[in-house]
């Protein structure tokens, strides 16, 4: 059975195609202005890679902010459920998932089937999101990929506003003007992000094992700061890019839905 998941986020769009619960193709692209265009583009790339056409897919679940705008999906499911399902499949011992996406972050506690027991998401503002890191990295003139590595080289990380991106920007500029090193500022940024995330995660009551999904899971500075704050190690997802977990979950849920339909 061939299923697919398509996750259209604010920063990136992802597609995963699975055959009998095995990943056969995956793609990530930068999101375009219209969710439908992003979805079609990323899915076409994945299909091409899998040497399939859309008609080969039995069931496709859409997720992410643009999920309702995706033209080719069979059903839309929230990214919270998709990340939970994907994470549990990738790491079967996981009970808590932290996902940091482009414009939001979420923490969820899940059962053995990857179903949600409790979840929380950040509120309106951009702090504690991938966007926060992106803005801050730009100010200190490092790439987003390099930001995570700065923490390991920092000697005296700055304390930074973790409540407001705008406030934090002013502080970062002030620290730059004061001649503080990029390492110490970068570490401060990563710590602020982790601290924001720790509050959310603690809010739902953590249970081992814990893993992180979303692009920020690749930022070593944030991950290690978060581990310290939570007093718990964070399991790494190695089978796929952590950004793809939502799309993987969507493809798995697609399979669940087909099975349920067949059974009934």
């Amino acid at each position, binding site marked *: 059975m061939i299923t697919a998941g398509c996750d259209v986020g604010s920063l990136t769009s992802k597609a995963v195609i699975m055959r009998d619960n095995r990943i056969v193709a995956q793609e990530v692209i930068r999101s375009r202005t219209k969710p439908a265009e992003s979805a079609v583009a990323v899915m076409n790339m994945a299909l091409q890679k899998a040497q399939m056409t859309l008609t080969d897919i039995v069931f496709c679940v859409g997720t992410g*902010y643009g999920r309702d705008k995706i033209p080719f999906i069979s059903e*839309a*499911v*929230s*990214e*919270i*459920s998709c990340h939970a399902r994907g994470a549990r499949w990738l790491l079967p011992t996981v009970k808590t998932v932290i996902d940091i996406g482009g414009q*939001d972050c979420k923490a969820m506690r899940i059962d053995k089937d990857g*179903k*949600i*027991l*409790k*979840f*929380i*998401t950040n*509120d*309106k503002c951009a702090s504690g999101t991938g966007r926060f890191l992106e803005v801050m990295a730009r100010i200190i003139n490092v790439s987003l990929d390099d930001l995570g590595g700065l923490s390991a080289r920092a000697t005296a990380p700055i304390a930074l506003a973790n409540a407001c991106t705008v406030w934090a920007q002013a502080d970062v500029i002030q620290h730059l003007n004061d001649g503080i090193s990029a390492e110490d500022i970068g570490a401060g940024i990563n710590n602020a992000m982790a601290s924001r995330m720790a509050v959310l995660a603690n809010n739902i009551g953590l249970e081992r094992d814990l893993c992180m999904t979303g692009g920020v899971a690749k930022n070593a500075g944030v991950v290690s700061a978060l581990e310290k704050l939570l007093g718990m190690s964070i399991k790494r997802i190695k089978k796929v890019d952590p950004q793809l977990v939502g799309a993987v979950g969507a493809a798995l849920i697609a399979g669940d839905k087909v099975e349920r339909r067949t059974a009934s």
Partner: protein
Amino acid sequence: MIDAFHESSTTLFNRHVRNWKTDGGKVVGYTCSYVPDEIFHAASILPYRLRGVGAREMNIADAYFGPFICSLPKCLLQLAGEGKYHFLDGAVVTPGCDSMRRLDDCWRKAGEDRAEALPSFFFHYAVPHKTADYSLKWFIEETRRLQAAVEKHFNVTITDYQLYDSIGIYNEGRLLLSRLDALRCAPDVAISGADALAVVLASTTIPRKSFNSLLMDLIAQIEAGSDRISGRKRLMLVGSANDDVELVRLIEGDEAVVVADNLCFGARFYADLVEQDGDPVAALAKRYLYHNDCPRMFGDYKGRLSILKEKIERAAVDGVILQNIRFCDLHGSENGIFERDLEAAGIPCMRIEREYGPLVETGRIRMRIDAFLERLEK
């Protein structure tokens, strides 16, 4: 039929208010469910609950309010500054919460800069934060002070007889709203949460006698009809003031129905009757101070929790949405403990912090609602 309620709930200067003004009637706006409508009704003035619907910008409000303030009073000031409340002859502000309390200061200051923004009658109605014999005494005196100010400004006399009459009419409205509530929380839901909210909102602007008669017709129509909502998740909406029908519609979507609430534009507004014997002002003060369960009445968490639990059971609620407007710490924090205690009692909850008015982010809220409904599916 329900369209008439929706029209009144989304348009500030709606048909009923327009007609009232055309007939030479006076309108006094107020900010909080602790203000007794009956005082104005008895003076033949239309009491009108102020709202911020339709605000598109914040430029006027931001000139007076600081940045860390709830967006509801900001929207309200914005509309007043834009002249959208031109039909008001008066306004009453209460210390419902600090953000709303400061509307008094900011609105008066805006009135200094824009004369048309401020109505000629402007009253600060000091509602205590506790229920004790001396705070009730204070509130009775405060209500008499409001009555005297209305009499003086509008050159009217409010007799006890008129107050009794008004209390009777408003009690009738409360009973009708409670009947509607029963239809809403019945096993086969007879009215959606969005429609029910529209009715409550309409009740805050339509002259009460007309409203009662409209509502009586609506109830009759619903009872006679067979349209029922079933197979959806039954939700309860709790927390900060919400006068946005679209928010409820967003929450309900295709899979849920809001069967109960504990909101001040909702059940809190019409729960409990005013006693109809004895001193009418004292009876009003008693009902409004004692039977209006907002976290502004500090220290009564347990009372409010038991109200929620009773409603959750009565309406067979599947899940509770605890929402607060950003910077509404009273509801926001109480929601935190509600969540702890309700979840412990096996009732799934979800907390949402949101903005009011033009800042509402529908996409993000929708995503959370979807995930919450997926959680309830188990």
